[in-house]
């Protein structure tokens, strides 16, 4: 193996080191999240007032988990190791599952989430990767919406379209501009890296069919913000 070659320059391949550390951290975090869920289950019955705190704990842990998944994913993307695993997905079930994974967050913040999708609608995409994209947006919406999130899915001209609408203030103009700018990258100076959006865009673009490519879009209406994912 070249990485253990004593004659090599001696410099550590930092990105590989990072990737394998992320991998370890992710596994630990997995255990942490599972134990946390159990603790919440047991202690919330005795002290319901702690529910909010627990939900913050869980929300943040799951954000870290998501961020690590992005990092690992982007690393693989860069090294051409990220292959998409297309399979047929039952959309209604898939969306309900994503909502279920963040149910505590929605309950605590008293957000009503509705899924509007035909029971028989199916789509073709990489379930794990797109789950990451949808989850990221849901967690984000939970933070900024007033009290409702509506998820709609439908087939539009042979492509699957999933839109996530909130009734908050809408996405900041700066973000809308950035996403519509074709030469986007990660802006490390602005504080918020929008890593999630960057990753979502990359993941969507990996989905191709009949010469079409997947994409994401952001828009605002008088009701609130709207995130759209389009997969051919």
């Amino acid at each position, binding site marked *: 193996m070249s990485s253990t070659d004593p004659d090599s320059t001696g410099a550590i391949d930092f990105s590989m080191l990072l990737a394998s550390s992320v991998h370890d951290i992710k596994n630990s975090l997995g255990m942490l999240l*599972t134990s946390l869920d159990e603790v919440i289950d047991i202690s919330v019955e005795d002290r319901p007032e702690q529910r909010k705190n627990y939900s913050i704990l869980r929300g943040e842990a799951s954000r870290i988990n998501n961020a690590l998944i992005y990092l690992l994913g982007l690393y693989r993307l860069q090294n051409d190791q990220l*292959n998409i695993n*297309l*399979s047929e997905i039952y959309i209604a*079930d898939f969306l309900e*599952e994503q909502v*279920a994974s963040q149910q505590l967050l929605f309950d605590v913040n008293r957000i009503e989430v509705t899924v509007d999708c035909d029971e*028989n609608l199916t789509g*073709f995409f990489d379930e*794990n990767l797109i789950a990451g994209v949808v989850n990221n947006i849901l967690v984000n919406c939970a933070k900024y919406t007033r009290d409702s999130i509506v998820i709609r899915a439908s087939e539009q001209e042979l492509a699957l379209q999933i839109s996530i609408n909130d009734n908050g203030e809408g996405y900041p103009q700066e973000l809308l501009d950035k996403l519509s700018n074709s030469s986007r990258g990660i802006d490390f100076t602005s504080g918020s890296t929008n890593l999630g959006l960057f990753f979502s865009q990359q993941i969507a673009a990996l989905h191709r069919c009949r010469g079409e490519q997947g994409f994401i879009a952001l828009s605002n209406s008088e009701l609130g913000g709207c995130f759209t994912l389009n997969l051919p």
Partner: protein
Amino acid sequence: MAITKLELLKFYKSKTVLIIDDYPDMRGSIRRMIENFGVRQVDTASNGEEAIKKCEEMAYDIILADYNLGDNKNGQQILEELRFKNLLKNTSVYMMITAETTKDMVFGALEYQPDDYLTKPFTQAVLEKRLDRLIVEKEALYEINNAIDANNLDKAIALCQQRINFHDKYEHRCYRIMGSCLYKKQLYGKAKQVYQHILGDRDLEWANIGLGKSMIALEELDDAEVLFSKLIDSGSLCLEVYDCMADISNRKGDAETAQKLLEQAIALSPNAILRQQALAEISEENHNWEQAEKSRRKIIKLGNNSVYESPELHFNLARTITAEMEYNEAPKDRIKDVDEVFRKMKRKYKDDNTALQADIISANAVAKTGDNERSKAIAEEVEKRIDSAVSPSAKLMLDMVETYNAMGSRDKAKELLKKLAKTYEDNEEVSEAIDRLSDEPLSAKGKQKAVELNNAGKKLFTDKEYGKAISLFSQALKHYPNNMGLNLNLMLALVREMTGSGVTSAMLDRCSVAKEKLSHLSEDNPLFDRYKVLGDHYAKLRTNFQDQSAN
């Protein structure tokens, strides 16, 4: 169509669940979740052996298995063993729990895939949604899966067609089941149509693999090769793709490429016993004894405590070493290894016939060391035991034939083969094995095949298609490696081809292998004159070629 919460609760109450995980905390945590769904009977297992034992006692409706179970069998191997032993019904759910995203794992064959993968960490709510979905699906397709479990494939195919006409969300799932049922029924043309129909909509891996396998079965090897090459280039992690590519190369007569492909697949997933077996066989065909022996040893190791465990695995290793001795420079040393194989085996299997078969193979190995007296002594002793043995197997008797051949007792070998051909007249598999060992076809099918080959060969010779004749006879020799007529015909085709379009060292080598097979021909054999003439031709070509390369 939608199933209510109440109905689901009723389903869960009647289901039996098995959880397989090596961490007690994890088992407990999943068990609590499952019990919260209303399931009454939840069992757990901490490793593969325990899990399989439990499945032998009861047919579970839902199995949740962690992929990584420490040093033990992983979740995929458990699945394969359960399917192999018919302990997992198609109406049941097998869900694999992984710490990784699914793409990090390497997939074996499509038919051994779980119903679903669930990535850790997951919450109770997520597990519930997943299980709900699978239970509803298994319920919707119950009749179809039940027909497959009852091995009534015609019924399953008809039911799939009915369901497809609903055009609901299970449409694709039904096409997929239908394709595999058609393939199993050997209706390859129809299976191909189903896969092509799906691929018209979407470029899906399972449909591509299904299509490719149907093409192979239909002998459309070039098309299949293009398709599988494309899958490999696109980074497919399904190892079945490599198996299929190896199969194509082998069918095209390129056993060396086939071996390389299998080695690649095994580097990715060294614990698949069936693939190791394929590699061992093809390596033997290539006379790559080192690899063959390595695989044979690995197979014994993998076979421990599994369904595949049998004395045959040990016999195979000993046979490989024995064959190796023929080509080895210091054959005497290897006899110790054969002894060691059988010493270990006899500790495990103590019945008379197993010991007898081991001694027969040992006599063969001893003959290969050149110690004729000792091998003769063993053979005589073994002959007596065969006479008093209780229903010795065909394989045992065939090993005796090989031993006779190794000792140079060709008449005894022939006599025994003729006897076996009569006894096993109706057994296709044994008949084939007999023809493999024999220098002329003895079974009815083998004789018929020989006539067909002869006629096809004659036509190619008249048309001066020597290249095609070479591949025809090479292919046939795979099934009947010792057949005199075939070896002679191959020599003839090679000599003609080289005389016409030039000598290559590869062709000379093939000619030499065929000549070697005929070296025991006696002068009174009617084929001897032709053999002699061809042998002289070959020698001349070889000398000229060597002189040329020297200049």
